[in-house]
Structure formats: structure tokens, C-alpha cells
């Protein structure tokens, strides 16, 4: 295809991505380096019959002029990155010096919003991802051995947790796990503690969120592995049987190695997706116990305060995190490309 033709074919989609993905990224980075102008204040003295009072008023004209001259705001450099709401460099240094044990230091770290969110985001990402891969794999093995006629039905129901809107799925689970819901009551009954409640316990809330994460994403792993199982070479499997491999050994030495590329694929995709965990925190009303980077951004953007600079800074930090998780995928794609060329 000629360059010219290619250009016209590709133009609409390129424009959409440039204007609404690339440009906002640049804008977000800029916003994270600037803070809005403070209003220019002037002191005025009002003298009346009872003496003089000084009052401070906003000089609208000067403020407006300043905003017009430099619409981006005051250049702050990395100031916002290091403030208490983000990397909190000063607070960490202080905590490091004052705290006597590692435990105490980590406790202080947990009070800083960014590190609190980071702790949950990373735990969630690295606990949920392996669990959902294992669950998806076992489901795929079990479904593969089913009668053909019920397979379709099983796949249909298995797809539901993944297809349903994350916020809706998490609400549905939350209403059941909540202390007044059916599973919540079952847990209270089993634990023998009628006051046990998700809302009051951080570990329980973390577990519930992770259960949701596995529930939501295991179907994806299942579908991918199930498709992979259809392509397992039957000859190899048969020769393994003739050589006397047990069922477990067949899975371990024939099926797993065959599916390994798919496991990597699912792991990479899911690491990136779980890193942006957000909706379940809203659905579970969990922000008192668990926050994530995405949730912080959402929280800064919403509400009355509308802290754009703070949100932009967290966004940049999130993008850096995603980039780190994405790098293996890029390396892989690059190798594929080099291999083909």
C-alpha cells in the first residue's frame, strides 16, 4: 500500500488517538508540574469614624492578569510529587529517623495516602493474578472433560462474572457479603461472632476485594486456557500414556508446557488490568480500608475540591507503574517482530 493511501485510511483513527489519548497524557504531565495561581491579595485600610480596620481582599484584576499571562499556573517542578499526598519524601525521612523498628516505620508509611494505596494495589495485583490463573486452569481442565452438550451451558454461566460491569458485579457480591447479606450471615454463623462485619475489618475487606478480583477475572483465564486445551497435540499425549505417564504427569509434562505461552499472556494482561483496580473499591464502599491509585485519582477529581494537579500527579505515577508492568509485553512484541523480519 502506498504511503499516501495508508495515510488517508489511517487518518481518522490516528486523529482520535492523538487528540484524546496522546495529548491528554502530555497535558496530565504538564498539570503535574504546575500548580494553580493563588489569588493575589491586597490589603486595604478602611478608615471610618471608629478608627481604621485593615481587610484583605482578592485583587480580581491582578489575579485575572496573572492567570492570563501564565495559564498553566505557577511552575512547581517536582514539588507536588514530593508532597504529603504523593511520594511524601519529607515525611518518610522523618519517620525513618524517629521510628525505632521497621514495624513502626511501616505503620507510619501506611498513614500516607499514596503508600497506603500502593500497598493495596500491589498486594491485590500480585495475589489475585496467580490465583485467577490457577482457578482458570482448573476450570478449563474440568470443563474440557465434560460432555459436549453441557459444555456450552457451563461456558455461558462462566462468562457472566467477567462480562458483567465491574461496578455492578462488585455491588452484587457486596450485597451478599455484607453483614446483612446471605454470605455475610453465613460467615458470622461459622465464626460464631454475630458482630463480624466487612465494614469494620480491614483484613476481611481486603479478602473480599480479592475474592471479587478472582471471581471477575478467572473466566478470562478459563476461556483462554480452554481454547489452548483444544490444540494440545494428541500424539504427544498418547505417547505419554503409552510410556505410562499418570494423569497428573500428563498434565504436568505435556499440557502445562503446551499452555505456558498462554499462561504468560494471561499473566501479563491481568497484571496490567489488576493494577488499575478501582470499581470494586467504590462498589464495596471500601475506601476506609483499602484504596488504590485509580481510586485516589477519582477521589481527587470528584467532590468539591477538584484537585487537578494532585490527580494529575497521581496519574503520572500510575502511568509509570503501568509502564513498568508493560515493559515485558513490549520486549516480547519486539522480539516477535525481529523474529519475523
Amino acid at each position, binding site marked *: *500500500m*502506498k*504511503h499516501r*493511501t*495508508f495515510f488517508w*485510511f*489511517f487518518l*481518522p*483513527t*490516528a486523529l*482520535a*488517538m492523538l487528540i*484524546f*489519548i*496522546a*495529548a*491528554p497524557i502530555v497535558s*496530565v504531565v504538564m*498539570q503535574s508540574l504546575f500548580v494553580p495561581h493563588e489569588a493575589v491579595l491586597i490589603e486595604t485600610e478602611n478608615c471610618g469614624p471608629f478608627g481604621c480596620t485593615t481587610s484583605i481582599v482578592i485583587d480580581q484584576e491582578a489575579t485575572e492578569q496573572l492567570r492570563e499571562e501564565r495559564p498553566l499556573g505557577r511552575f512547581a517542578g517536582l514539588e507536588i510529587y514530593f508532597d504529603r499526598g504523593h511520594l511524601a519524601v519529607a515525611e518518610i525521612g522523618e519517620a525513618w529517623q524517629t521510628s525505632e523498628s521497621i514495624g513502626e516505620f511501616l505503620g507510619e508509611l501506611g498513614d500516607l495516602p499514596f503508600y497506603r494505596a500502593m500497598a493495596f494495589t500491589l498486594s491485590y495485583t500480585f495475589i489475585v493474578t496467580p490465583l485467577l490463573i490457577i482457578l482458570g486452569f*482448573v*476450570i478449563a481442565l*474440568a*470443563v474440557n472433560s465434560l460432555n459436549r452438550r453441557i459444555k456450552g451451558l*457451563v461456558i*455461558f454461566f*462462566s*462468562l*457472566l*462474572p467477567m*462480562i458483567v460491569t*465491574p461496578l*455492578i458485579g462488585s*455491588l*452484587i457480591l457486596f450485597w451478599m457479603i*455484607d453483614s*446483612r447479606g446471605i454470605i455475610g450471615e453465613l460467615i458470622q454463623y461459622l465464626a460464631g461472632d454475630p458482630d463480624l462485619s466487612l465494614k469494620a475489618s480491614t483484613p476481611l475487606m481486603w479478602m473480599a476485594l480479592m475474592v471479587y478480583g478472582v471471581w471477575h477475572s478467572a*473466566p*478470562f483465564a478459563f476461556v*483462554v486456557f480452554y481454547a*489452548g486445551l483444544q490444540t494440545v497435540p*494428541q500424539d504427544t499425549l498418547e505417547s505419554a500414556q503409552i510410556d505410562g505417564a499418570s494423569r497428573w504427569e500428563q498434565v504436568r509434562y505435556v499440557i502445562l508446557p503446551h499452555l505456558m*505461552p*498462554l499462561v504468560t*499472556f494471561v499473566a501479563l494482561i491481568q497484571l496490567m488490568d489488576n493494577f*488499575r483496580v478501582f*470499581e470494586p473499591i*467504590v462498589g464495596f464502599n471500601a475506601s476506609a480500608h483499602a484504596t488504590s491509585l*485509580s481510586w485516589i485519582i*477519582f477521589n481527587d*477529581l*470528584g467532590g468539591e475540591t477538584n484537585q*487537578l494537579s494532585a*490527580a*494529575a500527579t497521581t*496519574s503520572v505515577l500510575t*502511568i509509570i507503574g*503501568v509502564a513498568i508492568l*508493560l515493559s515485558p509485553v513490549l520486549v516480547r*512484541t*519486539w522480539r516477535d517482530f525481529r523474529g519475523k523480519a
Partner: protein
Amino acid sequence: MAAAAQRKPVSLKVASLVFIVIWLMVAAFPFFWTLWGSFKVELDFFSIADWTNALTGDLTKETYGRPFTGAGYYGAWVQEEFWRAALNTFIVCFFVVVTSLTIGTLGGYALSRSGHNYVFWLLIAALIFRAMPPITLVSGYLPPFFQWNLWGYLPTAIIVLVAINQPFTLWMLHSFFQKIPKDLDESAKVDGCTQFQAFRFVIIPVMWPGVITTGLFSFLLAYNDFAVTAMLLNEQNRTMVPKIAAFLGTTYTEGNVMFAVAAVVSATVPLFLLVMVFQRQIVSGLTAGAVKG
């Protein structure tokens, strides 16, 4: 074939069957439970006294004389005007799917038919864009949208969703178009068609299976989005998902949780039907990217 060797011992068969049944319970039971409960009063659905109330609906019977009530649905759809949100969702999804497929097929087709080096870099750029959490882009949208008075309207959200959708659409359609033999449009060009004519008369008639699969995923993205629509739409223009989130803020205090439950069930129904009709396409779309690489 070695049917005898493939045959499973009974214990393994039973174990895997039990496992499947448990998984099906875990996967599907919450939906049926919530559907059933949405026709009850709050004190039945969230029963403090006795969990069997949720099944029998004792308190619902006391209030309404029947074990089922549509009060939650009436409250959500009529009183809280959930129909408006449903209509907005329909508009957003329709235009997102149509627009992103239109520009996506052109782009994906071009990517699949061009052998130049920049194709690879464009695909890599798309991959990076695909990995961006949409919420990180929102603070980049807000200042210009406020300044130019674009904030809050459906078309704005539609265009943003289309753009966010493009990377994924391009990857899917690119790999799909590669499977269509190049000879088809080459021979059309030999016969004197321009590239666009070849696309129009030769490729478009055979591309529908891939386009439908991609369209399903575009639809799901638009339908399921919460972060972007919640931040970019004003109150009247809210789609269903942010509307449900807004219910949560108000209803926990007002005791109208059942409105939210009814709204959640209503918003799940279209997805249910979608999976029922397009199960094959969804499965093939999910595995398309995976099995290849």
C-alpha cells in the same frame, strides 16, 4: 483412538463434576440471588432476623400482600428516572460502536495491507495506549472541556470512549484482516479498482464476522465504563453505571437500597442476553489475541 486409556477413573470424574457444580454456583448464583431479591422489600433482601425471609419474602407479604413486589423497579425507573440513564446508555453505546468500527476498520485494514516499518511502531503505540488506565487521562480532559464548554454532554463522552476504544479495535481488526487473503483486493486492483474501491467492494462484504466480534467488545467497553462517564457527564446525561453509583451515595441514607438493587438487575439483563446470543463470538474474540501469540 485410545478411548480406554482416555477414560477417567470414577473418582476423578466425580471430583471434576463436583468442582464444576461449585464453580457454577460461585459464578451464577449471585446473579440469580440478586434477581430474586430485587422483587422483595429491603428487610427481606438484607434480612437481619432470618435469612430464609429472603427466599419466602415474609416481610414483603406483610407490606404488599404478595411475596413479590415491583416497588424497587418502580422507584428506580419512574421515581428516580432510571429510564433516562438507560436511554443515555443506549445512545452512547450505539454511537461508540458505530464510530469506532467505522474508523477502526479503515485503520485496521490499512495496517494489515501495508508492509512498511511504521506499521509495527503504530501497533506498539496502540498497545501502550491500550495499557493506559482511562482514569489517568481524565484530568487531562477536564480543563479544556470546561474551558470550551464541552463538559457534560453525551457527544463528548462518546468521542472520548471511541478514542479509548481505538487501540484495542485496531489490534483486533488488524489481526482479523490479515487472515483475509491479500489476493482478493490485489486482483481487484489489477482490474482497475483504487485501494478504496477494493476495500469497499471486495473486503467489506467478507469482513462482517470479525467486525461483529470487535463490535461486541467495543459495546462492552462503552457499556461497562464507569471512570470516564462518571467524570465527563453531567447529572441529566449520566449513563446507567454512574447513575447506579449515584444511587449508592443517596440511597444508603434514605433507605432506598432496593432502588439500586433493581437498577443493578436492570442493567445486567442486556449483558445476559448479549452473552446468550453472542457466546461464540465473545469466546473467539477473547482467544484471538491469545492463541496467536
